[in-house]
């Protein structure tokens, strides 16, 4: 029988969670501050959100980030799933070691190094092939590269626990290997695909360092714009933007959490039913 945590543990836990949340709460509170002086409370306003809507630079950057995020995470899910299948289904093959280390490399590598090496690659490629131009394409390519690593690991663990006998049964019934995979295993691993897509999307949306390196003139993602503003200090419209993003992400994560718990419960119930 587990005993509950002691008072000391609860205190540390609360303190830790407070540390994590106080800055964000303060930020959100100040985004409604009517005074442009960030230190003085001048009453409640939503004016900063309105200015945000008229800030073309920010809107363009946000739109660019969204586009990059969607394209990059979709590609990453496809490639990462293929890599995961290769790793789980074929125990030994030529280049397995290479593939595993390539999958893990972006996870242990500091972003700044990934950024600089990828830029050098893109520049070299451009000199040789005349492609890609630095900007949208290069940012997407580099995001796909590091997101794929996360996708592979998420999908790999799910795939390893997925029951293969369904697929074998489908093949016994005459389905082609691809068809069997599509109809049985793919639905089984779809929650992992969804969550890894979301993870990739957030990672891509959030990335500053790699994007800054590989981006070209004229292509500024949202984090790049925020960063250049934040370097100059606190400004109220960035507060508003930040609160907006935190709010959206918060709602999405909570919704995803609730949804996942529900499907998990459903899965457990199904498993129960199946075993009875």
């Amino acid at each position, binding site marked *: 029988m587990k005993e509950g945590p002691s008072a000391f543990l609860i205190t540390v836990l609360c303190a830790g969670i407070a540390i994590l949340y106080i800055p*964000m709460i303060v930020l959100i509170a100040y985004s409604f501050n009517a005074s442009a002086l960030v230190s003085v409370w001048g009453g409640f306003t939503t004016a900063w959100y309105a200015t945000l809507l008229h800030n073309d630079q920010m809107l363009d950057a946000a739109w660019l980030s969204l586009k990059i995020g969607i394209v990059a995470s979709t590609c990453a899910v496809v490639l990462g799933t293929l890599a995961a299948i290769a790793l789980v289904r074929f125990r030994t093959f030529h280049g397995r070691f*290479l593939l595993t280390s390539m999958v893990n490399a972006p996870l242990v590598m500091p972003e700044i190094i990934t950024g600089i090496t990828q830029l050098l690659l893109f520049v070299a490629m451009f000199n040789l092939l005349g492609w890609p131009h630095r900007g949208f394409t290069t940012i997407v390519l580099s995001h796909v590269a590091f997101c794929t690593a996360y996708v592979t690991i998420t999908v790999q663990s799910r795939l390893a626990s997925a029951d293969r006998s369904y697929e074998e049964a489908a093949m016994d019934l005459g389905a082609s290997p691809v068809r069997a995979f599509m109809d049985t295993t793919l639905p089984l691993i779809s929650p992992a695909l969804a969550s890894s897509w979301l993870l990739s999307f957030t990672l891509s949306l959030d990335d500053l360092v790699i994007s800054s390196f590989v981006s070209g003139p004229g292509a500024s993602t949202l984090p790049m714009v925020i960063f250049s503003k934040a370097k100059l200090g606190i400004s109220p419209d960035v507060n508003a933007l930040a609160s907006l993003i935190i709010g959206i992400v918060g709602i999405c994560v909570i919704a995803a959490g609730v949804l996942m718990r529900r499907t998990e419960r459903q899965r457990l119930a199904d498993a129960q039913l199946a075993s009875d």
Partner: protein
Amino acid sequence: MFLLVFFLIPFGFALMISFAQTAIHVPPYTSIVSISPDSRIDLSLHLGNYKYLFTDEVYAIAYLYSLKTAFFSTLICLVLGFPMAYAISRTSKSTQNVLLLLIILPFWTSFLLRVYALEGIIRENGLINSALLWLGLIDQPLKIMRTSLAVYLGIIYSYLPFMVLPLFATLEKLDHSLLEAAADLGSRPWRAFVDVTLPLAMPGIIAGSMLVFIPAVGEFVIPTLLGGPDNLMIGRVLWDEFFGNRDWPVASAVAIVFLVLLVGPIALYQHYQAKELE
């Protein structure tokens, strides 16, 4: 057909990434050097960059400072994160889910925005100083921004979830009957903790520490936004060399040395770990 599709595509992709990483290892790739006007010849100048690294002590200082900062922030994260993870692992299943969600939520929100939010708190006229002044504990605002303290706070604040989650994963699996056995055999709680809990939690401690330490060493955003001019971390030096001085060869040299010094040992370590598991 199956083999073909699922072998070749990932393999080709891996090849592509491997290119990205070897891009600056391989001397022929220093054709990139021609972009930078001050160094036109390949190999000799390339070594010159490394020599420059060792003669100019800015780099050594930055490396050491990065390692030191990352080490101590990892330690503080561990000290703070361990009780948190332990407490979560002791609560009931439904509370656990809520608490975990609370820990994960900041992880999904933008990293940059969280650092920015922290700036709002520790600024000279931010929340901490206002509160302390109001309470009469201090006469004039504390200077936290642009100091090492701010960098530490930033790293701890940003990476704490990375420490808590792997710790929780191992602590959750901990068999409490072992602790009871230790207690039955007359062990005090503290002693039981050191002898039983700590060794069993080791994988989580190592995983968490790596997850905090590695990004912390290469951290660029936090020292730039929160730190002062003295807080030279290697990520920042690299960035300045690259964007400020436009000296790509030297920046690449910094990156390579960094990679060899830091990532090399870690990769080796993980390799051995994986071998041991097999």
